[in-house]
């Protein structure tokens, strides 16, 4: 568990260093996600034989279950910032209806355009391909 957390934080830290140090316009945690992906590829490459040098929790599924635990509770992590709404009730009172309109309309259109484009392109690309995922 601690080894898994250390690795996750290390990936995030390296991501932040890359993002801020090299001025990459990608957020640190997103770069960290990329680094974690590369780590998993290297770990499972049998030719390199990396698992021999790694702490057990990183290879025996503990890392994966730590990740699952975090992802299962993703909603929780938005609460502290969300509660900030109590400090902005004045603005919401003044602009609330307009803001609600913008948020609802744009989010609905965003969902609609994304899903329709994805489906249309997927149908075109995957036509005649037997291995379509359900």
């Amino acid at each position: 568990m601690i080894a898994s957390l250390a690795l996750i934080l290390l990936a995030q830290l390296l991501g932040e260093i890359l993002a801020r140090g090299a001025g990459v316009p990608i957020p640190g945690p997103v770069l960290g996600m990329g680094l974690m992906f590369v780590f998993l590829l290297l770990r499972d490459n049998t030719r390199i034989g990396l698992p021999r040098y790694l702490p057990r929790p990183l290879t025996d599924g503990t890392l994966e279950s730590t990740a699952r635990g975090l992802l299962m509770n993703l909603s929780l992590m938005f609460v502290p910032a969300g509660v900030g709404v109590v400090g902005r009730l004045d603005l919401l009172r003044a602009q609330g209806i307009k803001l609600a309109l913008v948020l609802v309309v744009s989010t609905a259109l965003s969902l609609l355009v994304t899903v329709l484009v994805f489906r249309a392109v997927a149908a075109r690309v995957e036509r005649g391909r037997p291995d379509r995922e359900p």
Partner: protein
Amino acid sequence: MAGDFSLWVYLAKTPLLWLTVTLTAYVLADRIAAATGRHPIANPVLITVVLVGSVLAVSGTPYPAYFEGAQFVHFLLGPATVVLAMPLYERRATVMRALVPMLTALAAGAATTLAVVIGLARLLDIPHAVVVSLAPKSVTSGVAMGIAEALGGDPTLTAILVILTGIIGAILVTPMMNALRISDMRARGFAAGLAAHGIGTARAFQVSEVAGTFAGIAMGLNAFLTAILAPLALHLLS
């Protein structure tokens, strides 16, 4: 009375109280959501924010004092983004096959969101500073706050708008996709992650793991693309 007061002073100073309130409210909200059979309206984030907000209002606690304790939960957003690599890795074959639809949908979705948000906000005469804070609202909160700050917006306001967007998206997505009869979980998840970032992703994971994986990818890609497009769109549409 003096004893009660010193107890309150002690509790208000440590992270313990607000951390406990946040977690307890979330557990309660999750129970309520589960009791409704995970109905979209019973969004756990929405319920928790209402519960915690009420506690703060009743106890007269200012938000910064609350955040002092709750920041430990907020911090986990970073590690949670990093571990999105796991479902991505486990389903990399599925993801690679869908690369073309994903990238096309990403470009279309990100551009539509920015154009509609900025266009509609201008039309409704929303003040410029608020429009800047509004522009990155479909991006996950840490990144959106960074974008808004760089463009001269108000990061705190952005965080709130981001979370409201996430809640709205998570409520809309399931009924909307069912009405459109879209059964491709990749497309549904991708749309949820693009429009409603982590809260949409959390919702997608409740519906299916494939949807959740694609939502996580969409969230990451959109954070990257909107960081580039938002300054451009604000410039063009101002």
